[in-house]
């Protein structure tokens, strides 16, 4: 086994023993079950779970990963004093945290959905929900790595992490709305599509909404989006962009870790 995988296994074992991941998965399962039982329709349940996945999952992942990595700083230093390359240690730290977190999301949301066994019409939406949730988890753990390896002070780091979440989950949409209001006289489909791709939460949201019957509420822009995402290359491009959103912070944090003074 390579040293990076060995380190990932060690870190994952440490993460799993911290118990927070089990609490996280159980909380998600409880929410999922509540939505599935009390939402009235299966479509509404998936929509509700989508909101949790798009807002709460990035926030919880970011905060918990940031706190965990700051607390593990001395242990990281001890590991770095062993005969390991920094790149291998970074890969071990990232994978050891991101994979269990993604697994917890899959168990918490995926198992209740799988137990229900949705019909053909919601299968695509459920798959989009699960893939988006996993990719957002991987993205936000990577953003947590960026924060921890770039900001020395942990309180400031936690503030920066919350700021990044606020920007991507709330402020970005406010900015897009302002842009739409100001540029309402121009055709906006293409700029809006580009703006959607520039934010992983928005991209996941649009990908999910267009798989549900709520897409009709999005008007002419929604129709244009639906046309784009219904094509295999459009959906493929969205998936590639979400994967790119994992890769960018991973590369930035790997670079920061490689240069960091412990």
């Amino acid at each position, binding site marked *: 086994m390579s040293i990076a995988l060995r380190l990932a296994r*060690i870190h994952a074992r440490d993460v799993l023993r911290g118990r927070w991941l089990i609490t996280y998965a159980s909380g998600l399962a409880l929410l999922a079950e509540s939505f599935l039982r009390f939402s009235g329709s299966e479509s509404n349940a998936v929509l509700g779970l989508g909101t949790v996945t798009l807002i709460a999952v990035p926030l919880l992942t970011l905060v918990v990963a940031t706190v965990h990595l700051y607390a593990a700083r001395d242990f990281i230093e001890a590991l*770095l*004093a062993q*005969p390991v*390359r920094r790149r291998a240690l970074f890969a071990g730290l990232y994978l050891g945290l991101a994979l269990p977190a993604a697994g917890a999301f899959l168990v918490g949301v995926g198992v209740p959905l799988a137990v229900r066994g949705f019909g053909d019409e919601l299968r695509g939406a459920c798959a989009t929900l699960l893939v988006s949730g996993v990719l957002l988890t991987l993205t936000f753990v990577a953003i947590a790595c960026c924060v921890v390896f770039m900001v020395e002070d942990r309180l400031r780091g936690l503030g920066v992490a919350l700021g990044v979440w606020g920007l991507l989950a709330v402020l970005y949409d406010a900015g897009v709305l302002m842009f739409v209001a100001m540029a309402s006289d121009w055709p906006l489909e293409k700029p809006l599509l580009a703006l959607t791709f520039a934010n992983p939460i928005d991209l996941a949201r649009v990908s999910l909404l267009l798989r549900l019957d709520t897409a009709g509420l999005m008007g002419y822009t929604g129709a244009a989006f639906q046309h784009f995402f219904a094509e295999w290359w459009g959906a493929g491009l969205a998936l590639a962009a979400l994967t790119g959103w994992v890769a960018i912070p991973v590369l930035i944090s790997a670079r920061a870790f490689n240069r960091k003074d412990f």
Partner: protein
Amino acid sequence: MTTPMVEVASLTKRFGSVDILRGVDVTIARGRITGIVGPNGAGKSTLIKLILGLTRPTSGRILVDGHPVDEDGAYRARIGYMPQMGRFPEHLTARELFDTMHEVRGRDVEVDDDLVGVLSLQDQLDKPLRTLSGGTRQKVNACLALRFSPALVILDEPTAGLDPRSSALLKDAVLSLRSSGVTTIVASHVMSELEELCDDIVFLLDGRVCYTGPISDLRGLTRQANLERAVAALMIREVA
């Protein structure tokens, strides 16, 4: 003539606009115990972290056992490091911590368990680290540093928090390592401890090396009876 265990040449380290080390040249002789002394902020811990590759130099070169300190951490296979305050995941037990580090280094690496018995740690091995006292955790740190038969041992304030008996036992272990050819670097503020343990001294002041060489030569140079007074005399001379 044997090559030195550690060679540091023209080493500088700057954090932001602050120069921590300013052109440090140090040679650590093989098989000897070398103490690093200096007032707070002199750059002792930074020098140790640079040798371990935990901190990146601004400029300069470091060789450990002839290997450059670079991205390939393989040279650390023969280093045992005891940090000033090693904090590990608190739910781990000492046994699990030892096992984890063994897993990181590779299962084929030879393990030396002697210090666990010497420091009477057997009964503490299966308790979570959070339940251990500061001194006991420091013993765990010491056992970890000496566990994988290192050729170079780096100890940062090793006896801080240890009771007198454990402190004496650890010093005995370090002295016995010297007789088996192991090189040791000790950073400490406790001059009596350094005087008891060390053959050589590196005295850092304001990021520069003020003296490097045998303790006996330093005492002769400053005409002082012990290390504490010799270092104090050197500091007064440098500041003046």
